[in-house]
């Protein structure tokens, strides 16, 4: 049973296709199950999002809204200057979290309409605005691109 070049190529191609096929199947089903949508406060108020749905909420942290209680839970309000959503987060906040700053949080709504976040995305650069937040602010006309770039 000698190996011919044609046979070798066939085996390699079939093997490659098999692995790629399995991988594509896994990729597609996983994408369907694991993608997380990003919503602005306006979108949250327009859609009726079920409490089981995990999503990302982004916008600006409303000035004066951050409440650090006595425990490890922090409450604040995320706004897109049109609508707001109350957020509750348990844990230590990233260093660059601040009032009036852009923020992206991930979690679920509870029955009372409060967004219970388990993740507050940190950023490395205070001038960095997550793209989704920048886009939604632009849409509302509240975002000027070169605002913080002095000379």
């Amino acid at each position, binding site marked *: 049973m000698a*190996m*011919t*070049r044609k046979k*070798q190529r066939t*085996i*390699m191609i079939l*093997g*490659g296709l098999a*692995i*790629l096929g*399995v*991988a594509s199947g*896994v*990729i597609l089903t*996983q*994408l369907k*199950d*694991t*993608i*997380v*949508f*990003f919503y602005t406060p306006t979108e949250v108020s327009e859609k009726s999002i079920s409490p089981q749905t995990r999503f*990302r909420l982004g916008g600006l942290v409303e000035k004066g809204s951050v409440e*650090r*209680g*006595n*425990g*490890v839970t*922090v409450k604040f309000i995320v706004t897109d200057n049109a609508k707001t959503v109350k957020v509750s987060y*348990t*844990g*230590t*906040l*990233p*260093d*660059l979290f601040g009032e009036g700053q852009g923020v*992206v949080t*991930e979690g679920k709504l509870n029955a009372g309409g409060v967004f219970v976040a388990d993740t507050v*995305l*940190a*950023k*490395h*650069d*205070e*001038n*960095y*605005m*997550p*793209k*989704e937040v920048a*886009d939604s602010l632009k849409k509302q006309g509240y975002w000027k691109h070169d605002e913080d770039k002095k*000379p």
Partner: protein
Amino acid sequence: MITETGHFVLILALVLAIFQTIVPMYGAAKNDARLMATAQTAAITQFLLVSIAFGALMHGYLVSDFTIKNVYANSHSAKPLIYKISGVWANHEGSLLLWVLILTMFGAAVAVFSGNLPPTLKARVLAVQGSVASAFLGFILFTSNPFERLNPAPIEGTGMNPMLQDPALAIHPPLLYAGYVGLSVAFSFAVAALIEGKVDAAWARWVRPWTLAAWMFLTVGISLGSWWAYYELGWGGWWFWDPVENASFMPWLVATALLHSAIVVEKRNALKVWTILLAILAFSLSLLGTFLVRSGVLTSVHAFANDPERGVFILAILVFFVGGSLSLYAWRATSLKAGGIFAPLSREGSLVLNNLFLAVAAFAVLTGTLFPLVYESFTGGKISVGAPFFNMVFGILIVPLLLLLPVGPFLSWKRANGLAAIKRLWIAGLAVVATIVTVFVLKADGPWAAPIGMGIAVWLIAGSLSEMAERTKFLRSPFMTFWARLKGLPGASIGMTLAHLGMGVTVIGIVAITAWKQERILVMKPSESINFAGTQVTFVSEIAGQGPNYSAETGRFDVTVDGKFVTSLYSEKRIFQPSGTPTTEVGIHPFWSGDLYVVMGDAVKTGGRTVRLYFNPFAPLIWFGSLIMFIGGMISLLDRRYRVGAPKKAKKPTLQAAE
């Protein structure tokens, strides 16, 4: 004056790079030795010019010359010296200059160390290298000039992003870039080979050391970045599947595949077309990574404020090089002669399988990384693809690869006896079973997959050592025979064993931290204690202090085990001047069994602080394993057979007269 010189030589470098792209390429087509020879001089001179430009910018940082916009925007006179130096590349313009510096350094290295390359191949390789340099020098000069002046000059700079003021992050970009850009050499060799229409064992022998060097730098660069994220960001994690992380991981996967497929080209003259494709893809993914990081099209926690217009320029470079090289590939690849035939069960077969898994894993990471972009452009909806996707998909693809890894080196070329290979691994197999049982008994309450994960790690380590024991006849022959054989092992063989073993060590760390990490968030007041992960942690006090360019509040945490004092950990909140940016320093104590990790959070109204505690079992092994891989690469690189110029060794140690 120095600044203007820097700007001027950078323009000269661009002109020279364009020259280097065109003239040697034309010379190779016309077989004109004089024109081809210009490539070498051009490459070396170009490196010198870019070095001068880089030195000029660094000078600006060292003397805090705030008439330079870039220095003003990213430096401060009170900054410690090391961060004045690293400040040069801690910003967009400077980091691109570093990119080009390393690119031209590789170009000059190819020019110097490849005396035995056929002249046409050498000229074409350097010409392609020159074209990449032209594109990036043009990008710097037209959109991102680091030498722009300010008038009037400010008295003080605005400071550097404090999060980057860290020793590991000072050297992370140069190492990572050396990896990214090092892959350009493999790319240039691939394009040159397509133009020549010839790929043979010698070609693979020339390409291998360059790919290996790039791979080593990528390995250690990625690892350093992950370590930094672990101790600096204070989330207790080490890998987040963030787009910026994926951007560096994809080229690593493809470069790993390329290293393995180049072996088949070299030993068996087969898989040539595929190897060329991998060389093109590896560098293409480096360019894609540069684009993703620099353009900010994807939301990333590691992203910095950026400028979309520049992104378009990099996108154009990306499209040109990827599109151009792939078109050339489609046109010319069929002209390469097919090589040796092998059975599916053979060393070649195992390397093909390795390549398939790595390539498909890279494809999966690419899909997950770019999917949000695709989704948005089709539906307008914004989504994110997070860790659950990558963990599942990557896990499914990587586990079979790791299971097969120790078997490959036992298979013979052309046609192998699979049963014989498995038999030689019986000791490793026993070690795996023992590990799985032990871990299962000790950690019965942990996740069920953890014992299997540990079994895989031991399989990698014991399997790699078995191969070395087999080669050296360990315990099956007198000690002196073993010793002589061990000393006689080629560097490439020791390097392979170490790289595979290092992978196993990294897997131990990954499995342990994933399965058995402990976490606790609570409010602690000074002098309060808590029992955590077998230790007692006491929040002793808070002290206010002052650093060179920041003020700090330091929390002291005393750690005791069974009533015996072990160490004091310090976690700090720093406020950097002049920006007022806060950062957190984590307190970490490495026990043998893992890291105790303490983060002091914000103050609470009623007094006290939120405190986050982690116990990360065996975490340091993640980075230690990659260090072993790096050392393995280094030993392999020193293998005389791969040293550039090795085929012809000078017999007579006489000096040659200079020409």
